[in-house]
Protein backbone atom coordinates (compact mmCIF):
# COMPACT_ATOMS: atom_id res chain seq x y z
CA UNK A 1 0.00 0.00 0.00
CA UNK A 2 3.03 2.21 0.44
CA UNK A 3 5.04 4.03 -2.16
CA UNK A 4 8.69 4.95 -1.95
CA UNK A 5 10.53 7.92 -3.45
CA UNK A 6 13.15 7.45 -6.14
CA UNK A 7 16.14 9.70 -5.65
CA UNK A 8 19.01 10.26 -8.06
CA UNK A 9 21.74 12.21 -6.30
CA UNK A 10 24.77 13.51 -8.17
CA UNK A 11 24.66 10.54 -10.52
CA UNK A 12 27.45 10.16 -13.04
CA UNK A 13 27.77 7.66 -15.84
CA UNK A 14 30.43 7.36 -18.50
CA UNK A 15 30.37 4.67 -21.16
CA UNK A 16 33.79 3.64 -22.40
CA UNK A 17 34.37 4.13 -26.09
CA UNK A 18 34.57 0.96 -28.10
CA UNK A 19 36.44 0.95 -31.40
CA UNK A 20 35.72 4.19 -33.22
CA UNK A 21 33.25 5.28 -30.56
CA UNK A 22 34.55 7.92 -28.19
CA UNK A 23 34.16 7.71 -24.44
CA UNK A 24 30.90 9.45 -23.56
CA UNK A 25 29.78 10.98 -20.33
CA UNK A 26 26.02 10.47 -20.42
CA UNK A 27 25.36 11.84 -16.96
CA UNK A 28 27.29 14.13 -14.63
CA UNK A 29 26.08 15.21 -11.19
CA UNK A 30 22.54 14.45 -12.22
CA UNK A 31 19.92 15.16 -9.54
CA UNK A 32 16.29 14.13 -9.66
CA UNK A 33 13.80 13.30 -6.95
CA UNK A 34 10.54 11.50 -7.64
CA UNK A 35 8.22 11.82 -4.67
CA UNK A 36 6.41 8.86 -3.17
CA UNK A 37 3.24 8.27 -5.15
CA UNK A 38 4.24 10.61 -7.95
CA UNK A 39 4.28 9.57 -11.59
CA UNK A 40 7.11 11.26 -13.39
CA UNK A 41 7.49 11.16 -17.16
CA UNK A 42 10.93 11.45 -18.69
CA UNK A 43 11.12 12.68 -22.28
CA UNK A 44 14.04 13.70 -24.39
CA UNK A 45 15.84 12.95 -27.63
CA UNK A 46 17.00 9.48 -28.48
CA UNK A 47 20.27 8.45 -26.86
CA UNK A 48 20.11 11.12 -24.16
CA UNK A 49 20.20 8.58 -21.29
CA UNK A 50 16.56 7.94 -20.34
CA UNK A 51 16.82 4.17 -20.38
CA UNK A 52 20.12 4.41 -18.52
CA UNK A 53 18.40 6.33 -15.71
CA UNK A 54 15.51 3.88 -15.63
CA UNK A 55 17.86 0.91 -15.55
CA UNK A 56 19.73 2.45 -12.65
CA UNK A 57 16.47 2.73 -10.73
CA UNK A 58 15.73 -0.90 -11.62
CA UNK A 59 19.13 -2.12 -10.51
CA UNK A 60 20.01 -3.26 -14.02
CA UNK A 61 22.73 -0.66 -14.31
CA UNK A 62 25.07 0.94 -11.80
CA UNK A 63 26.07 4.55 -11.60
CA UNK A 64 29.78 5.40 -11.72
CA UNK A 65 29.42 8.14 -9.16
CA UNK A 66 26.63 9.38 -6.91
CA UNK A 67 23.74 7.25 -5.75
CA UNK A 68 20.35 6.04 -6.92
CA UNK A 69 17.99 5.37 -4.11
CA UNK A 70 14.91 3.27 -4.62
CA UNK A 71 14.44 2.47 -0.98
CA UNK A 72 16.38 -0.76 -0.83
CA UNK A 73 14.12 -3.76 -0.67
CA UNK A 74 11.07 -2.17 -2.22
CA UNK A 75 8.68 -4.14 -4.38
CA UNK A 76 9.43 -2.99 -7.87
CA UNK A 77 7.37 -3.69 -10.99
CA UNK A 78 8.51 -2.95 -14.48
CA UNK A 79 6.89 -2.77 -17.90
CA UNK A 80 9.23 -2.95 -20.85
CA UNK A 81 8.74 -1.95 -24.46
CA UNK A 82 8.30 -5.63 -25.29
CA UNK A 83 6.13 -7.76 -22.99
CA UNK A 84 9.04 -10.01 -21.95
CA UNK A 85 6.82 -12.90 -20.95
CA UNK A 86 7.99 -16.47 -20.48
CA UNK A 87 6.42 -17.92 -23.60
CA UNK A 88 6.52 -21.50 -22.29
CA UNK A 89 4.33 -20.65 -19.33
CA UNK A 90 0.64 -19.87 -19.35
CA UNK A 91 -0.55 -16.31 -18.89
CA UNK A 92 -1.56 -16.97 -15.30
CA UNK A 93 1.76 -18.62 -14.44
CA UNK A 94 3.61 -15.62 -15.80
CA UNK A 95 1.75 -13.40 -13.37
CA UNK A 96 1.93 -15.84 -10.47
CA UNK A 97 5.71 -16.18 -10.73
CA UNK A 98 6.17 -12.46 -10.17
CA UNK A 99 3.92 -12.64 -7.11
CA UNK A 100 5.81 -15.65 -5.79
CA UNK A 101 9.13 -13.89 -6.26
CA UNK A 102 7.81 -10.80 -4.46
CA UNK A 103 6.36 -12.90 -1.65
CA UNK A 104 2.80 -11.64 -2.10
CA UNK A 105 -0.40 -13.60 -2.55
CA UNK A 106 -1.17 -14.51 -6.17
CA UNK A 107 -4.79 -13.49 -5.63
CA UNK A 108 -4.29 -9.91 -6.76
CA UNK A 109 -2.66 -11.12 -9.96
CA UNK A 110 -5.69 -13.25 -10.77
CA UNK A 111 -8.02 -10.31 -10.21
CA UNK A 112 -5.83 -8.12 -12.36
CA UNK A 113 -5.98 -10.52 -15.30
CA UNK A 114 -9.74 -10.03 -15.31
CA UNK A 115 -9.31 -6.32 -14.83
CA UNK A 116 -7.04 -5.95 -17.84
CA UNK A 117 -9.62 -7.80 -19.92
CA UNK A 118 -8.00 -11.19 -20.16
CA UNK A 119 -10.65 -13.30 -18.46
CA UNK A 120 -10.72 -16.60 -20.31
CA UNK A 121 -7.10 -16.32 -21.41
CA UNK A 122 -5.56 -17.44 -18.14
CA UNK A 123 -4.52 -20.84 -19.46
CA UNK A 124 -3.39 -19.58 -22.87
CA UNK A 125 0.24 -19.35 -23.84
CA UNK A 126 1.58 -15.85 -24.60
CA UNK A 127 2.35 -16.56 -28.26
CA UNK A 128 -1.35 -17.20 -28.81
CA UNK A 129 -2.15 -13.63 -27.74
CA UNK A 130 -1.99 -10.41 -29.71
CA UNK A 131 0.74 -7.90 -28.99
CA UNK A 132 -1.69 -5.70 -27.10
CA UNK A 133 -2.96 -8.60 -25.03
CA UNK A 134 0.58 -9.60 -24.17
CA UNK A 135 1.32 -6.10 -22.98
CA UNK A 136 -1.81 -6.33 -20.82
CA UNK A 137 -0.32 -9.42 -19.21
CA UNK A 138 2.87 -7.44 -18.62
CA UNK A 139 0.83 -4.69 -16.95
CA UNK A 140 -1.00 -7.22 -14.78
CA UNK A 141 2.34 -8.76 -13.84
CA UNK A 142 3.84 -5.43 -12.83
CA UNK A 143 0.87 -4.52 -10.66
CA UNK A 144 0.24 -8.01 -9.27
CA UNK A 145 3.05 -7.61 -6.77
CA UNK A 146 1.38 -4.60 -5.13
CA UNK A 147 4.36 -2.51 -6.26
CA UNK A 148 5.80 0.40 -4.37
CA UNK A 149 7.64 1.50 -7.50
CA UNK A 150 6.68 0.98 -11.13
CA UNK A 151 9.12 1.64 -13.96
CA UNK A 152 7.92 1.87 -17.54
CA UNK A 153 10.23 2.11 -20.57
CA UNK A 154 8.22 3.14 -23.64
CA UNK A 155 5.54 0.64 -22.62
CA UNK A 156 3.11 1.37 -25.46
CA UNK A 157 5.40 2.25 -28.32
CA UNK A 158 5.29 -1.23 -29.87
CA UNK A 159 1.49 -1.45 -30.23
CA UNK A 160 -0.82 0.37 -32.63
CA UNK A 161 -2.23 3.79 -31.71
CA UNK A 162 -5.69 2.56 -30.77
CA UNK A 163 -4.38 -0.24 -28.58
CA UNK A 164 -1.93 2.18 -27.01
CA UNK A 165 -4.79 4.52 -26.12
CA UNK A 166 -6.71 1.71 -24.44
CA UNK A 167 -3.65 0.55 -22.56
CA UNK A 168 -2.98 4.09 -21.32
CA UNK A 169 -6.48 4.30 -19.92
CA UNK A 170 -5.98 0.90 -18.34
CA UNK A 171 -2.70 2.02 -16.82
CA UNK A 172 -4.44 5.10 -15.40
CA UNK A 173 -7.06 2.88 -13.76
CA UNK A 174 -4.45 0.56 -12.30
CA UNK A 175 -2.53 3.55 -11.04
CA UNK A 176 -5.52 5.13 -9.35
CA UNK A 177 -6.38 1.98 -7.43
CA UNK A 178 -3.20 2.08 -5.43
CA UNK A 179 -0.68 4.66 -6.64
CA UNK A 180 2.94 3.54 -6.53
CA UNK A 181 5.84 5.83 -7.37
CA UNK A 182 6.32 5.81 -11.11
CA UNK A 183 8.98 6.60 -13.65
CA UNK A 184 7.75 6.58 -17.23
CA UNK A 185 10.10 6.93 -20.17
CA UNK A 186 8.32 7.83 -23.39
CA UNK A 187 8.74 9.52 -26.74
CA UNK A 188 5.04 10.32 -26.87
CA UNK A 189 4.53 13.78 -25.39
CA UNK A 190 0.75 13.39 -25.28
CA UNK A 191 1.18 10.17 -23.37
CA UNK A 192 3.52 11.92 -20.95
CA UNK A 193 1.01 14.72 -20.39
CA UNK A 194 -1.92 12.35 -20.00
CA UNK A 195 -0.30 10.00 -17.50
CA UNK A 196 2.19 12.03 -15.50
CA UNK A 197 2.04 14.35 -12.51
CA UNK A 198 5.23 15.97 -13.73
CA UNK A 199 7.09 15.87 -17.03
CA UNK A 200 10.85 16.29 -17.22
CA UNK A 201 12.50 17.14 -20.52
CA UNK A 202 16.13 16.08 -20.80
CA UNK A 203 18.66 17.58 -23.16
CA UNK A 204 22.38 17.95 -23.78
CA UNK A 205 25.36 15.77 -23.07
CA UNK A 206 25.82 15.14 -20.24
CA UNK A 207 22.05 15.17 -19.87
CA UNK A 208 20.39 17.83 -17.75
CA UNK A 209 16.83 18.85 -17.06
CA UNK A 210 15.92 21.51 -19.64
CA UNK A 211 12.28 21.80 -18.67
CA UNK A 212 10.02 20.71 -15.87
CA UNK A 213 6.26 20.82 -16.33
CA UNK A 214 3.71 20.11 -13.63
CA UNK A 215 0.48 18.52 -14.82
CA UNK A 216 -2.07 19.67 -12.26
CA UNK A 217 -5.10 18.00 -13.77
CA UNK A 218 -7.41 15.88 -11.66
CA UNK A 219 -7.73 12.16 -12.37
CA UNK A 220 -9.24 10.26 -14.01
CA UNK A 221 -8.20 12.25 -17.05
CA UNK A 222 -9.44 11.94 -20.57
CA UNK A 223 -6.86 11.57 -23.35
CA UNK A 224 -8.88 14.16 -25.30
CA UNK A 225 -8.82 16.82 -22.59
CA UNK A 226 -7.85 20.10 -24.35
CA UNK A 227 -5.77 21.12 -21.34
CA UNK A 228 -3.45 18.20 -22.12
CA UNK A 229 -2.83 19.56 -25.55
CA UNK A 230 -1.45 22.78 -24.12
CA UNK A 231 1.00 20.79 -22.01
CA UNK A 232 1.91 18.61 -24.95
CA UNK A 233 2.75 21.79 -26.91
CA UNK A 234 4.94 23.10 -24.13
CA UNK A 235 6.89 19.86 -24.00
CA UNK A 236 7.23 19.75 -27.75
CA UNK A 237 8.57 23.29 -27.90
CA UNK A 238 11.45 22.26 -25.63
CA UNK A 239 12.14 19.09 -27.57
CA UNK A 240 12.54 20.56 -31.05
Amino acid sequence: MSAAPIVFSRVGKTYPGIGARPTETILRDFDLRIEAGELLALVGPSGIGKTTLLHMAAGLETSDTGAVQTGGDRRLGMVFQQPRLLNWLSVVRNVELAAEAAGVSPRRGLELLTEVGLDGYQAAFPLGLSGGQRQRVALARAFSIDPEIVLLDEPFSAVDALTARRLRLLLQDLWLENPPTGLLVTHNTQEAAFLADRVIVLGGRPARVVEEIKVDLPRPRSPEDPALFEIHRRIMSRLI
Partner: protein
Amino acid sequence: MSATDTVALPGVARQPEGGGAWRAWAPRLRAALPGAVFCLLVAGLWEVLARTKQSPLVPDLAEVWGEILRLLAGGMALEQVGITLWRISLGGIAGFAIAVLLGLFAARSRLFGAFIRPAVLLGLTVPGLVWALLCVIWFGVGLATPVVSIILGIAPPLLVTISQGLRAVDSELTEMAHVFRFSRAARIRHVLLPSIVPFLLSGVRLAFSLAWKVIVLVELFGLSDGVGYQLNSEFSSQNVAGVLAWTLIFWVVMAAIEFGLMQGMENRLTRWRRESSL
Protein backbone atom coordinates in the same frame (compact mmCIF):
# COMPACT_ATOMS: atom_id res chain seq x y z
CA MET B 1 13.82 -13.48 -29.97
CA SER B 2 14.31 -16.51 -27.77
CA ALA B 3 16.91 -19.19 -28.23
CA THR B 4 14.29 -21.79 -28.97
CA ASP B 5 13.24 -20.01 -32.13
CA THR B 6 16.15 -21.45 -34.02
CA VAL B 7 14.92 -25.02 -33.78
CA ALA B 8 12.31 -26.33 -36.15
CA LEU B 9 9.27 -28.12 -34.86
CA PRO B 10 8.65 -31.70 -35.77
CA GLY B 11 5.91 -31.80 -38.36
CA VAL B 12 3.42 -33.52 -36.12
CA ALA B 13 -0.10 -32.24 -36.35
CA ARG B 14 -2.55 -32.46 -33.49
CA GLN B 15 -4.61 -35.61 -33.64
CA PRO B 16 -8.34 -35.16 -34.06
CA GLU B 17 -10.35 -36.55 -31.14
CA GLY B 18 -12.11 -39.83 -31.94
CA GLY B 19 -12.60 -40.71 -35.57
CA GLY B 20 -11.16 -44.22 -35.40
CA ALA B 21 -7.66 -45.60 -35.02
CA TRP B 22 -6.87 -45.25 -38.70
CA ARG B 23 -7.70 -41.55 -38.70
CA ALA B 24 -5.36 -41.02 -35.79
CA TRP B 25 -2.51 -43.00 -37.26
CA ALA B 26 -2.69 -41.95 -40.88
CA PRO B 27 -0.66 -38.73 -40.48
CA ARG B 28 2.03 -40.53 -38.51
CA LEU B 29 2.29 -43.25 -41.13
CA ARG B 30 2.55 -40.63 -43.82
CA ALA B 31 5.32 -38.92 -41.89
CA ALA B 32 7.17 -42.23 -41.56
CA LEU B 33 6.87 -43.11 -45.24
CA PRO B 34 10.08 -41.50 -46.58
CA GLY B 35 12.14 -43.20 -43.89
CA ALA B 36 10.54 -46.53 -44.68
CA VAL B 37 11.32 -46.11 -48.37
CA PHE B 38 14.95 -45.49 -47.48
CA CYS B 39 15.13 -48.68 -45.41
CA LEU B 40 13.56 -50.75 -48.17
CA LEU B 41 15.99 -49.30 -50.67
CA VAL B 42 19.02 -50.19 -48.55
CA ALA B 43 17.65 -53.68 -47.89
CA GLY B 44 17.04 -54.17 -51.62
CA LEU B 45 20.55 -53.06 -52.54
CA TRP B 46 21.98 -55.33 -49.89
CA GLU B 47 20.04 -58.28 -51.21
CA VAL B 48 21.32 -57.65 -54.74
CA LEU B 49 24.87 -57.41 -53.41
CA ALA B 50 24.47 -60.63 -51.42
CA ARG B 51 23.15 -62.57 -54.39
CA THR B 52 25.84 -61.38 -56.76
CA LYS B 53 28.71 -61.93 -54.29
CA GLN B 54 27.56 -65.29 -53.00
CA SER B 55 30.00 -64.98 -50.12
CA PRO B 56 29.60 -65.81 -46.39
CA LEU B 57 30.92 -62.30 -45.73
CA VAL B 58 27.76 -60.81 -47.27
CA PRO B 59 24.85 -62.89 -45.94
CA ASP B 60 21.50 -62.36 -47.63
CA LEU B 61 18.44 -60.97 -45.91
CA ALA B 62 16.92 -64.35 -45.18
CA GLU B 63 20.05 -65.39 -43.34
CA VAL B 64 20.16 -62.23 -41.27
CA TRP B 65 16.46 -62.56 -40.50
CA GLY B 66 17.06 -66.15 -39.40
CA GLU B 67 19.78 -64.92 -37.04
CA ILE B 68 17.46 -62.26 -35.65
CA LEU B 69 14.79 -64.87 -34.96
CA ARG B 70 17.38 -67.14 -33.30
CA LEU B 71 18.53 -64.32 -31.03
CA LEU B 72 15.02 -63.23 -30.18
CA ALA B 73 13.94 -66.77 -29.32
CA GLY B 74 14.11 -67.48 -25.61
CA GLY B 75 14.44 -63.77 -24.78
CA MET B 76 18.22 -63.78 -25.13
CA ALA B 77 18.35 -60.68 -27.32
CA LEU B 78 15.96 -58.79 -25.09
CA GLU B 79 17.98 -59.59 -22.01
CA GLN B 80 21.27 -58.49 -23.58
CA VAL B 81 19.76 -55.32 -25.01
CA GLY B 82 18.27 -54.62 -21.59
CA ILE B 83 21.67 -54.96 -19.93
CA THR B 84 23.27 -52.59 -22.42
CA LEU B 85 20.42 -50.07 -22.20
CA TRP B 86 20.64 -50.11 -18.41
CA ARG B 87 24.32 -49.24 -18.58
CA ILE B 88 23.70 -46.53 -21.16
CA SER B 89 20.92 -45.04 -19.03
CA LEU B 90 23.01 -44.95 -15.86
CA GLY B 91 26.02 -43.45 -17.58
CA GLY B 92 23.86 -41.19 -19.70
CA ILE B 93 21.89 -39.73 -16.80
CA ALA B 94 25.02 -39.23 -14.71
CA GLY B 95 26.90 -37.68 -17.63
CA PHE B 96 23.98 -35.44 -18.47
CA ALA B 97 23.58 -34.23 -14.90
CA ILE B 98 27.30 -33.48 -14.65
CA ALA B 99 27.30 -31.63 -17.97
CA VAL B 100 24.27 -29.50 -17.00
CA LEU B 101 25.78 -28.62 -13.62
CA LEU B 102 29.19 -27.77 -15.05
CA GLY B 103 27.51 -25.83 -17.85
CA LEU B 104 25.52 -23.73 -15.38
CA PHE B 105 28.63 -23.05 -13.30
CA ALA B 106 30.66 -22.18 -16.36
CA ALA B 107 27.93 -19.80 -17.53
CA ARG B 108 27.93 -18.09 -14.13
CA SER B 109 31.67 -17.84 -13.75
CA ARG B 110 33.99 -17.02 -16.60
CA LEU B 111 36.88 -18.15 -14.41
CA PHE B 112 35.38 -21.58 -13.92
CA GLY B 113 34.68 -21.84 -17.64
CA ALA B 114 38.32 -21.09 -18.41
CA PHE B 115 39.37 -23.50 -15.68
CA ILE B 116 37.59 -26.50 -17.17
CA ARG B 117 38.22 -25.62 -20.81
CA PRO B 118 41.34 -27.81 -21.13
CA ALA B 119 39.44 -30.74 -19.67
CA VAL B 120 36.61 -30.24 -22.14
CA LEU B 121 39.04 -30.04 -25.04
CA LEU B 122 40.77 -33.18 -23.83
CA GLY B 123 37.42 -34.93 -23.57
CA LEU B 124 36.48 -33.91 -27.09
CA THR B 125 39.78 -35.14 -28.46
CA VAL B 126 40.24 -38.47 -26.73
CA PRO B 127 38.45 -41.29 -28.57
CA GLY B 128 35.87 -43.33 -26.67
CA LEU B 129 38.10 -46.32 -27.19
CA VAL B 130 40.71 -44.87 -24.84
CA TRP B 131 38.18 -44.26 -22.07
CA ALA B 132 36.84 -47.78 -22.53
CA LEU B 133 40.30 -49.32 -22.24
CA LEU B 134 41.35 -47.19 -19.28
CA CYS B 135 38.14 -47.83 -17.37
CA VAL B 136 38.36 -51.56 -17.94
CA ILE B 137 41.91 -51.49 -16.58
CA TRP B 138 41.04 -49.27 -13.60
CA PHE B 139 37.63 -50.49 -12.57
CA GLY B 140 37.54 -54.09 -13.81
CA VAL B 141 34.24 -55.77 -14.45
CA GLY B 142 32.00 -53.74 -12.13
CA LEU B 143 29.25 -51.32 -13.09
CA ALA B 144 31.69 -48.43 -12.61
CA THR B 145 33.47 -49.28 -15.86
CA PRO B 146 30.58 -48.66 -18.26
CA VAL B 147 29.19 -45.75 -16.23
CA VAL B 148 32.46 -43.85 -15.90
CA SER B 149 33.52 -44.40 -19.48
CA ILE B 150 30.15 -43.19 -20.75
CA ILE B 151 30.36 -40.11 -18.53
CA LEU B 152 33.84 -39.36 -19.85
CA GLY B 153 32.67 -39.94 -23.40
CA ILE B 154 29.50 -37.84 -23.38
CA ALA B 155 29.99 -35.08 -20.81
CA PRO B 156 32.43 -32.95 -22.84
CA PRO B 157 30.35 -32.69 -26.05
CA LEU B 158 27.20 -32.25 -23.96
CA LEU B 159 28.85 -29.46 -22.02
CA VAL B 160 29.63 -27.70 -25.30
CA THR B 161 26.03 -28.05 -26.46
CA ILE B 162 24.61 -26.82 -23.16
CA SER B 163 27.01 -23.88 -23.00
CA GLN B 164 25.91 -22.83 -26.48
CA GLY B 165 22.31 -22.98 -25.29
CA LEU B 166 23.04 -20.93 -22.20
CA ARG B 167 24.82 -18.28 -24.23
CA ALA B 168 21.74 -18.00 -26.42
CA VAL B 169 19.37 -17.33 -23.50
CA ASP B 170 17.42 -14.15 -24.17
CA SER B 171 19.05 -11.38 -22.13
CA GLU B 172 15.74 -9.48 -22.06
CA LEU B 173 14.20 -12.33 -20.06
CA THR B 174 17.21 -12.50 -17.78
CA GLU B 175 16.75 -8.79 -17.06
CA MET B 176 13.05 -9.28 -16.43
CA ALA B 177 13.77 -12.08 -13.96
CA HIS B 178 16.33 -9.86 -12.26
CA VAL B 179 13.99 -6.89 -11.95
CA PHE B 180 11.18 -9.02 -10.55
CA ARG B 181 13.65 -10.56 -8.11
CA PHE B 182 13.21 -14.17 -9.17
CA SER B 183 15.04 -16.53 -6.86
CA ARG B 184 17.97 -18.43 -8.31
CA ALA B 185 15.89 -21.60 -8.35
CA ALA B 186 13.06 -19.83 -10.22
CA ARG B 187 15.53 -18.37 -12.70
CA ILE B 188 17.03 -21.76 -13.46
CA ARG B 189 13.71 -23.55 -13.57
CA HIS B 190 11.58 -21.02 -15.44
CA VAL B 191 14.04 -19.02 -17.51
CA LEU B 192 17.26 -20.94 -18.13
CA LEU B 193 16.13 -24.52 -18.54
CA PRO B 194 13.08 -23.81 -20.75
CA SER B 195 15.27 -21.57 -22.91
CA ILE B 196 17.73 -24.35 -23.58
CA VAL B 197 15.20 -27.15 -24.10
CA PRO B 198 16.07 -27.52 -27.80
CA PHE B 199 19.73 -27.79 -26.88
CA LEU B 200 18.95 -30.29 -24.12
CA LEU B 201 16.92 -32.42 -26.51
CA SER B 202 19.65 -32.51 -29.12
CA GLY B 203 22.03 -33.18 -26.24
CA VAL B 204 20.02 -36.24 -25.20
CA ARG B 205 20.14 -37.55 -28.75
CA LEU B 206 23.85 -36.88 -28.98
CA ALA B 207 24.45 -38.53 -25.61
CA PHE B 208 22.53 -41.62 -26.62
CA SER B 209 24.46 -42.17 -29.82
CA LEU B 210 27.83 -41.45 -28.22
CA ALA B 211 27.08 -43.63 -25.21
CA TRP B 212 26.19 -46.51 -27.48
CA LYS B 213 29.54 -46.23 -29.24
CA VAL B 214 31.41 -46.23 -25.94
CA ILE B 215 29.44 -49.01 -24.27
CA VAL B 216 29.98 -51.42 -27.14
CA LEU B 217 33.72 -51.06 -26.68
CA VAL B 218 33.53 -51.44 -22.93
CA GLU B 219 31.47 -54.59 -23.21
CA LEU B 220 33.77 -55.89 -25.88
CA PHE B 221 36.97 -55.40 -23.87
CA GLY B 222 35.96 -55.85 -20.30
CA LEU B 223 32.55 -57.35 -19.71
CA SER B 224 30.96 -60.71 -20.31
CA ASP B 225 27.50 -59.67 -21.39
CA GLY B 226 25.65 -56.92 -23.23
CA VAL B 227 25.28 -56.24 -26.93
CA GLY B 228 28.96 -55.30 -27.37
CA TYR B 229 30.08 -58.61 -25.90
CA GLN B 230 27.64 -60.51 -28.11
CA LEU B 231 28.81 -58.65 -31.17
CA ASN B 232 32.36 -59.64 -30.38
CA SER B 233 31.53 -63.29 -29.89
CA GLU B 234 29.69 -63.38 -33.23
CA PHE B 235 32.73 -61.72 -34.74
CA SER B 236 35.06 -64.32 -33.21
CA SER B 237 33.07 -67.10 -34.81
CA GLN B 238 33.11 -65.19 -38.10
CA ASN B 239 29.32 -65.03 -38.12
CA VAL B 240 28.64 -61.90 -40.15
CA ALA B 241 24.90 -62.54 -40.13
CA GLY B 242 25.06 -62.59 -36.31
CA VAL B 243 26.91 -59.27 -36.19
CA LEU B 244 24.34 -57.71 -38.51
CA ALA B 245 21.47 -59.22 -36.54
CA TRP B 246 22.68 -57.68 -33.26
CA THR B 247 23.25 -54.35 -34.94
CA LEU B 248 19.77 -54.37 -36.44
CA ILE B 249 18.12 -55.37 -33.18
CA PHE B 250 19.80 -52.55 -31.35
CA TRP B 251 19.01 -50.13 -34.15
CA VAL B 252 15.32 -51.00 -33.86
CA VAL B 253 15.44 -50.41 -30.12
CA MET B 254 17.09 -47.03 -30.59
CA ALA B 255 14.54 -46.08 -33.25
CA ALA B 256 11.73 -47.05 -30.87
CA ILE B 257 13.28 -44.83 -28.20
CA GLU B 258 13.60 -41.95 -30.64
CA PHE B 259 10.09 -42.16 -32.02
CA GLY B 260 8.33 -43.30 -28.87
CA LEU B 261 10.13 -41.46 -26.12
CA MET B 262 12.12 -38.59 -27.56
CA GLN B 263 9.53 -37.22 -29.95
CA GLY B 264 6.83 -37.58 -27.31
CA MET B 265 8.99 -35.62 -24.90
CA GLU B 266 9.78 -33.00 -27.54
CA ASN B 267 6.09 -32.58 -28.36
CA ARG B 268 5.26 -32.11 -24.72
CA LEU B 269 8.05 -29.65 -24.05
CA THR B 270 7.28 -27.50 -27.08
CA ARG B 271 3.51 -27.63 -26.73
CA TRP B 272 3.40 -23.88 -26.05
CA ARG B 273 4.52 -23.17 -29.60
CA ARG B 274 1.90 -25.25 -31.29
CA GLU B 275 -1.02 -24.32 -29.08
CA SER B 276 -0.14 -20.73 -29.78
CA SER B 277 -0.46 -21.03 -33.52
CA LEU B 278 -3.84 -22.78 -33.44
